[in-house]
């Protein structure tokens, strides 16, 4: 028998999904909605309404939609305010899953793309997290999960602009983790290997493609544990450890 009084019953939780139209975000929302309400944030409202309906039909829990544009910084405060209202006096968690990945070739042909890659992958992410952080701090609880990439672990010939944006985000998250730790919140950096999504579909035959559901389930589990960093699938921890250990004078000659 449990003798918890009503005031001690676990708080209702909401996951704010930033960049909700990706396959990983959809899979994460489905997994998380078993135990939490979901607020989907992104630009494609038609698509998000469909996902919200799907979540409601599956779990019977609340699922809503809010407009969010990563590079329209001025709008971030409104997005966060709506998320705060949606969560009510429950907990607010954040899953951040947006980003863009033009190929290195496209960037070489049009260096103007560099600013866009940095804005979408770094500035937009850091900015919305900065705006949202005080909400989590005020509640003295909450979880932040951010998808970065193994590409951020080492600059590579084939992907170094995208990689450097993700590397910057990784460093930002280390700082944010220290800050939110003081308020009892956790920050989990998720570094997936190649995932079978629209972003990678048809690019080239990458062998070890993970299913979005695999990455989503691992991310949710890591978040619940409050893990700092997650490589998913797990093999990428080994791969990236080796890649980081290769001396630069050799690495620069490699065609990867």
């Amino acid at each position, binding site marked *: 028998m449990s003798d918890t009084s009503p005031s001690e019953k676990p708080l209702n939780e909401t996951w704010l999904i930033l960049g909700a139209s990706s396959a990983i975000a959809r899979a994460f929302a489905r997994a998380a909605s078993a135990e939490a309400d979901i607020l989907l944030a992104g630009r494609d409202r038609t698509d998000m309404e469909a996902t919200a309906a*799907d979540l409601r039909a599956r779990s019977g829990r609340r699922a809503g939609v809010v407009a969010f544009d990563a590079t329209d910084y001025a709008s971030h405060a409104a997005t966060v305010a709506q998320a705060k209202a949606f969560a009510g006096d429950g907990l607010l968690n954040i899953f951040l899953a947006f980003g863009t990945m033009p190929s290195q070739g496209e960037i070489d042909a049009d260096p103007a793309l560099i600013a866009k890659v940095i804005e979408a992958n770094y500035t937009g992410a850091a900015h919305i997290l900065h705006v949202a952080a005080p909400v989590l701090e005020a509640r003295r609880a909450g979880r932040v999960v951010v998808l970065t990439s193994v590409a951020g672990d080492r600059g590579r010939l084939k992907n170094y602009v995208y990689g450097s944006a993700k590397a910057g985000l990784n460093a930002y998250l280390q700082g944010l983790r220290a800050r939110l730790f003081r308020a009892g919140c956790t920050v989990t950096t998720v570094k997936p290997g190649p995932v079978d999504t629209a972003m990678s579909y048809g690019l080239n035959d990458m062998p070890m493609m993970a299913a979005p559901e695999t990455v989503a389930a691992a991310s949710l589990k890591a978040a619940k544990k409050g893990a700092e960093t997650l490589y998913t699938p797990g093999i990428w921890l080994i791969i990236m450890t080796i890649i980081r250990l290769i001396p630069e004078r050799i690495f620069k000659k490699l065609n990867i």
Partner: protein
Amino acid sequence: MTRWKKMTLTGWGRSHVASVEAARPERPRDLDEAMADTASGTLIAHGAGRAYGDSALNTNGRVVLTERLDRVLGFDAATGLVICEPGVTFANLMEIFLPRGFMPAASPGTSFATVGGALAADVHGKNHDRHGGFGDHVEWFDLLLADGTTRRVDAQNDAELFAATIGGMGLTGIVRAVAFRLLPNASPWVRVKERRIRDLDEYIEAFATIRDRSTFSVGWIDAVATGAALGRGILETAEFEAHDTLPKPRNPHRVPFDFPGFALNHFTVKAFNAQHYRRVPQTGRERRKSFAEFLYPLDALHGWNRIYGKRGFYQFQCVLPDAGARAGLRRLLEAISEAGNPSFLAVLKTLGRSGRGHLSFPMRGFTLALDFPRINGADGLLRRLEAITLDHQGRIYLAKDSLLTREGFRAMYPLLPRFERVLAKVDPASRLMSDQARRLGLKGAP
């Protein structure tokens, strides 16, 4: 910009292989873009690829994989009306709705099939006498047409396009949402009765009595038995049963490689079939099974189509009207055992009534389905079975078909002219095209 990926696709029987360019939309707008991006050239929807032959293939053309359009868009427990994107599978529907007591009214024998594929083939289940086919429960659907527009179609506002799309094998457009009714009072458990049937005559009589009494019924036939045992098998009937636990999720196994061609020969199949027949005691037996295990016996073995080896196999399924069924089934089974092609999955069911589509397969009668390894002589056998089917006013199921002739097709589907009139209207340039449509001479294929 749509990204098209070059790939090789096969039907479930792996007899047809096609090189295609495939798009895999995740959002509604990706689907619109894929259609717009194919202003010239041809396109066909591809669901879970469970059609056996070439229905969802388009050699040297394009396909749209619908697997990622997999959301349930709404559900009303008061009416049972559910709205789905086309890539939602029967496994999804069962997982979400069966615990709440709702089931799809018609479910094919594999839960991997998608709702889009079910509408396009107007699939039937083991309860067709009682509940009809998939199309009978469709309220409306949203159809993306070749001109890039989307139309919401129901039986009133565009009766002809509605009838052409249900059972229309993807040739009118790409279905992007379907609203259909689930049936209440379903349970995750059924009580299954199994009994031995000595021969074909006993089968016909048994079905004549149970088809109106049982909710579910399906017969398995030992297709290598001959003489007095011709048509012997096991008849299963099932009713829902209340029970206070949920079935354990099934633990699937995977066929890890293509079996060598000799693995399935006359002797192994004969031994297997005889053993399968004796599995059920002479007096019959009764047990509780999970609904999923009853409906989808093969789904626990992923990739079971590989046991037929690299050359693949054909599936043949026809329906014969009640009147000539006894004589027709006898001739079919005789032709099969004479040919000596070792078929070990032969299924006999009854269908209750015609479907709503121009090309809907069901009609009141008996339906026989068999797998044939693609060995020498298999093509000739299928031709003979087609002729026997025609002789008995029957028809062959397009979702299972690999070799049907143009003449046979026209004779079996009397509403074809109406179907073709709709195609001429909604897709005058024949942009929606499949290998099957080409083979059957649809859409002006030379």
